[in-house]
């Protein structure tokens, strides 16, 4: 018995002193391996008388359990020490700058403010049941003017600065559409009411200065049914202005105006302030024109084969660059087409910033 105690103490001491997993394994084999000291002692139990066997067996079992536990504990300790040692040697500089694009790629690009603004406008009117329609940029006189109640000598035509293409054999000449309104005509000719369309797109006028570009974008809206009236026009456009400028209390003013294709006609202003030369949208005692609108002229309905005693509705149009400039504080119209990377990165939008009224604007607004 003394033997066993001595042996146990000696092995436990060796375990305590073991400095590596390999040393520990050697101790385990020397004690508990097939030819280990304890293993051999246990094998020798059979030669003892039953009483001595019982006593020695219990002592040996206890010693074996104690040693096994000590081995496990030491193994765990040494393993952790080894890992800590390894980790201490593995140090990276986390302050090194990285490329934030997909692995190895460039950073994300930007969506042009015109595209983003169109998507915003479509998302808002989409909530009001409008669907997007489009039409050709190269138009004929009928769709761009005549059907819209603008006969050839109408003074309004002179204000349009129309780009023309060469005369065709029959003497007629095509033109670049001066407005998105011809899509109203194309839609009414192609489908029966009810109609609710929103028409974003390129428009062209032969005018180029600080506030005019020969190409710009408009968005047109058209509602045709049996009941929509000026009150609906107001309700629809007030809702749009408040959603677009994300301002529940932005004042909206309707004042009489004139367009050949609407009657009654209204210009729509939103409230703003111009204190200290800085334009701010919102209640501020001043007004800013952003939309033209009106009830579709009976003659326009007739021109499209619709009976004005049966159908009516309203139409509106606005400049996309203009509302983008107002919403995002972009000072100069001409910069929209300049493709200056610095401008595009500054005023552009992240690709996954997809406008949606139910999701709301991204915190922080434009691109990072």
């Amino acid at each position, binding site marked *: 018995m003394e033997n066993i105690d001595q042996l146990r103490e000696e092995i436990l001491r060796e375990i305590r002193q073991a400095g590596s997993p390999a040393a520990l394994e050697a101790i385990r084999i020397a004690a508990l391996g097939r030819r280990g000291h304890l293993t051999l002692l246990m094998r020798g139990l059979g030669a003892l008388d039953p009483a001595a066997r019982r006593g020695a067996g219990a002592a040996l079992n206890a010693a074996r359990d104690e040693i096994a536990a000590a081995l496990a504990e030491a193994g765990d300790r040494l393993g952790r020490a080894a890992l800590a040692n390894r980790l201490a040697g593995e140090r990276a500089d986390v302050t090194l700058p*990285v*490329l934030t*694009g997909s692995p*190895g*790629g*460039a*950073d*994300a*690009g930007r*969506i042009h403010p015109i595209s983003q603004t169109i998507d915003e406008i479509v*998302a808002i*009117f*989409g*909530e*009001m*049941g*409008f*669907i*997007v329609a*489009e*039409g*050709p*940029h*190269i138009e004929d006189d009928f769709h761009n003017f005549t059907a819209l109640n603008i006969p050839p*000598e109408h*003074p309004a035509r002179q204000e349009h600065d129309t*780009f*023309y*293409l060469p005369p065709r054999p029959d003497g007629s000449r095509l033109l*670049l559409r001066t407005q998105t309104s011809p899509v109203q005509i194309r839609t009414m000719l192609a489908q029966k009411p*009810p109609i*609710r369309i*929103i028409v974003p797109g390129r428009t062209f006028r032969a*005018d180029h200065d600080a506030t005019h570009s*020969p*190409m710009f974008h408009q968005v047109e809206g058209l509602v045709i049914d049996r009941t929509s*009236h000026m*009150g*609906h*026009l*107001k*309700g629809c456009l007030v*809702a749009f202005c408040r959603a677009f400028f994300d301002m529940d209390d932005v004042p909206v*003013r309707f*004042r*009489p105006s*004139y367009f050949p294709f609407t*009657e*009654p006609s209204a*210009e729509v202003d939103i409230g703003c302030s111009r204190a200290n030369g800085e334009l701010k949208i919102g209640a501020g005692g001043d007004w800013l024109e952003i939309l033209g609108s009106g*009830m579709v002229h*009976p003659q326009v309905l007739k021109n499209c084969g619709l009976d004005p005693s049966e159908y*009516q509705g309203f139409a509106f149009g606005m400049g996309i660059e203009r509302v983008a400039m107002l919403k995002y504080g972009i000072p100069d119209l001409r910069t*929209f*087409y*300049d*493709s200056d*990377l*610095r401008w595009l990165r500054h005023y552009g939008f992240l690709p*996954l910033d997809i406008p949606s009224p139910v999701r709301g604007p991204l915190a922080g607004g434009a691109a990072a």
Partner: protein
Amino acid sequence: MKTTLSWLKTHLDTEAPIAALAERLIMLGHDVESVEDRAAALDGFVVARVVSAEPHPNADRLRVCVVDNGTSETQVVCGAPNARAGMKGVFGPAGVHIPKTGAVLTESAIRGVASKGMLMSAAELALGDDHAGIIELGADAPIGTSYATLLGLDDPVIDLKVTPNRADCLGVRGIARDLAAAGVGQLKPLDTTPIEGRFRSPIAIHLEGLTACPLFLGRHIRGLKNGPSPRWLRDRLEAIGLRPISALVDITNFVTFDLNRPLHVFDAGKLAGDLTVRFARPGEILHALNGREYELDPEITAITDANGVQSLGGVIGGEATGCTEATTEVFVEAALFDPIRTAATGRRLEIASDARYRFERGIDPAFVGPGLEIATRLILELCGGEPSEIVVAGAEPQWRREYLLRPERMSGLGGLHVPPAESRAILEALGCTVADAAEHDGSLTVSPPPWRGDIEGEADLVEEVLRIKGYDHIPAVPLPRESVVSRPAIDPRRRRLELVRRTLAERGFVEAVTFSFISADMAERFGGAKPELRLVNPISADLDAMRPSVLPGLVEAARRNADRGLPDVALFELGPLYRNDRPDGQTNVAAGLRAGRVRPRHWREPAREADLYDAKADALAALAAAGAPIDNIQASADPMPWYHPGRAGRLRLGPTELGHFGELHPDVLEACEAKGPIAAFEVFIDAVQLPRARGARLPLRLSVFQPVERDFAFIVDSDLPAETLLRAARAVDRKLVTEIRLFDVYEGTGLPEGKKSLAISVTLQPQEATLTDAEIDGFSKRLVAQVEKATGGTLRG
């Protein structure tokens, strides 16, 4: 259209302040461009008399003056050499702002003598350069009067944007009438009492046809004296930006702007015989009052005498018969000219006159006679003389018409319930004749006045009532929703454009928007400048062709960015190109280019210049976003001419061309002054077939058996397209092979001249049982055999 407040008040009895009038005008549909208060700068300066002017005790050049402003006397020290007792000048008391400097005038002591104000020079009032002395006023200038009033400047000028339909508001009276209808004051009566003619006009009028000129009234006035207009008339014309010339000319301008009644006054002494209104004959010429010479054609309405054309009806008068200071007899014309013909003449001859502007918008057909009477009265008043009887040719055209205004249309179209009695009152105030309709249901029978040619139906009447009542009264009503949950606003074609746009941006491209027109030279280089797509009137010669490709605009943008020191560019545009002038010739494409480095220099990844493979990847990514099955798209080495002949290609799906990609041709880069290489692509989104409606997906079968991957390398001819090898490998066992990836291309040491090695990795995915070694071997042998056969190559040992 400009007017002054006092001018407006000659027609409108109102006490409303200018700001209230401006606000009301805006809400009546006459947008106010500006209200200029010319008196504001002179606020506080009054006419004063210098009572005494004594030498300053302490300064030789200064005088101590006592100034009487009508209510009190003030002492001022003055340095002006012309300051003297008894004179009248302009006095600024302490506290006023000096217009020239903006400074406030303060009481002070000058060399020990108190000075409580200032006698002003013109320069100090910012009214001129004269600072040699103080302003000297006439002896009749009333002491105490505001100097602005004395100058006639205490009269704000309102500039209105009159919409093209409201010809009647191109006269001050029309504006007054609208304001009166809106309850802002009373319209004053107009004196149109006929003036009795004393003799028969020696000049008669003959109309050849009535379409161009349905009515022409004339009157001869003899024994008059032309000279400068009186002050009130000159002030009014100057206030609205017109230059006073002589009484006769000023009167025609005044009646034009006051009553929207353009007139012409011929010097009757220079006319030869009667006047005939006819179409001009080819080759006839008019020396016009603007000093220019016009060659006429038979579309033009000419007013002629025995000597030829003397005036163009409704557009401009002639120099030969114009009035001068020497004129003693005149023939006054008041006529109606066809709006369309007047507009056409003005446009063709490029004459923008006040008369043309009004005639082409429509003149009151019932106000020709009254207008002539008013003009006659003014001429007699200002120039004296003796009037003839009026000569009349033609007749007043029919303008009376009736429209029904049903009360339910006010609410049904206008969105506002207005009682018929109120509608009636408004329309009557606007000059309409209104009666109850026979139905007695509240409907009104409305006959618009002759000056409102723009009212053409019930919708116009609804607008008139709403306009006067105020759009603010119309309640905003939400547009009824047609479905509880919003339906898609964009169809699948537009939806995928959006996906392409955002996919390219996510790949690092920045979106540009460039013009639809480019230079014909660029159009020629990028696919051709078709004659039917050349603009007749471009804004500049380099923007005259509808683009056959989006790339030129992007190359130009890349060059501009490089010029700004930003040579590393990834730009794309999603927009139209134009193949012909028909609607179907316009198609949406996604085009992009990469110039300079694909990535910035970075410690982790080496910088690399863009090449054709970047462009191919971008093109395929765009097509994939558009829904094209990109595994089936074939690239071919037959590039468009604007690309590098050996480093570019086209993309096709079966017979359909879907786009092109590659490095741009050095010639093109040189023409664009752009630095290369530029890797570009253009894909035709509209040409991609729209996938069928997306619903339930095909069932997914996941194999429980391990996939196996095997690599093969083949030595083939250097010019063998990789696609040939890949196609052969794919065809070996389409069911078993799930992926083939070409992972190595090698040419050089260890390989014979003219050969390259292509290595592929093939993934086999068994569905029924784990593949045995024998099965894998069998597959490998078949693959090697088929690839060697198709490519003429050999398995690399």
